[in-house]
């Protein structure tokens, strides 16, 4: 039996509490890294984390990429979408294919 956690700044995550997800408000990266590690080892299969916080915890988040549990998924916070979530998907594509073939059109458009 697994659980779902949501991490991030308080304003971005408190709504998830109503749905019955476990909410861990965290603003400070050092504290958040500890929390993340603790959550990963205590039966959370999915951890949603705001992009802003994930940015600060990059190495910690990357550590769990190749592991089956937990899945760490980036969500946009209340301050807006930074595009870090998509960047993670792009990273997978680059890792697998060697170059980015899915997001190519968008990059060109944004240039």
């Amino acid at each position, binding site marked *: *039996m697994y659980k779902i956690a949501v991490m991030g700044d308080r304003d971005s995550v408190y709504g998830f509490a*109503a749905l019955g997800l476990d909410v861990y408000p965290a603003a400070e990266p050092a504290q958040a890294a500890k929390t993340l590690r603790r959550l990963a080892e205590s039966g959370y299969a999915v951890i949603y984390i705001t992009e802003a916080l994930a940015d600060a915890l990059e190495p910690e988040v990357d550590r769990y990429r190749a592991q089956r549990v937990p*899945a760490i998924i980036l969500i*946009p916070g209340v301050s807006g979408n930074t595009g870090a979530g998509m960047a*993670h998907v792009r990273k*997978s594509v680059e890792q*697998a294919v060697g170059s980015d073939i899915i*997001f190519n059109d968008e990059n060109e458009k944004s240039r």
Partner: protein
Amino acid sequence: MATVHVNPTRMELTRLKKKLVTAIRGHKLLKDKRDELMRRFLDLVRENKALREKVEQGIAAANRNFVLARSVMSDEVLNVALMAPKQEVTLEMETQNVMSVEIPKYHYKTRTSDANDIYSYGYAFTSGDLDSAVKSLSDLLPDMLRLAECEKACQLLAAEIEKTRRRVNALEHVMIPEMQDSIRYITMKLDENERSTQIRLMKVKDMMLEQAHHYKEKMQ
């Protein structure tokens, strides 16, 4: 040319030939595995991208609603309203085997079956915006779980593809040419040995005949 030192013996040759056959077979299999993984990965990653766009938009919309709700309610009221959630979500995880990569499948269960249990407050002191904000998040939950499933699968597949690709390349560009070189080196060495033995025998035969019949003396 043989970069690795090998003993030019017949036993080594047989061993290398067997190894080469295995390597070629392994290379073919791994290449097939890589192609199939890649096909699945591309399908999944497209789905992942579409889902992510949808979820990000959904969350942005929900966040707007929450900001609206906050603007008309005090922090204390909001905290009290969301302090004790009635609903609880748990996950069951299955794994699906895709080309020997175990990818997760999530099934979520809510503690109570009543859809209205996401509202953990009486409606007297909260604004209607909070209701719609909570509702919009709750509608998004299945998509968010599917996104988690999809994105994790993509990450795992990407790691496996990278590994497989390295193996394929190592076999194709290093192992197999090296073995072929070694085999060529041994065959050439063995042939050379055989020729030299034959020449030696011919020479010995000549010398023995010369001793027996003294051709040279007779010619003079």
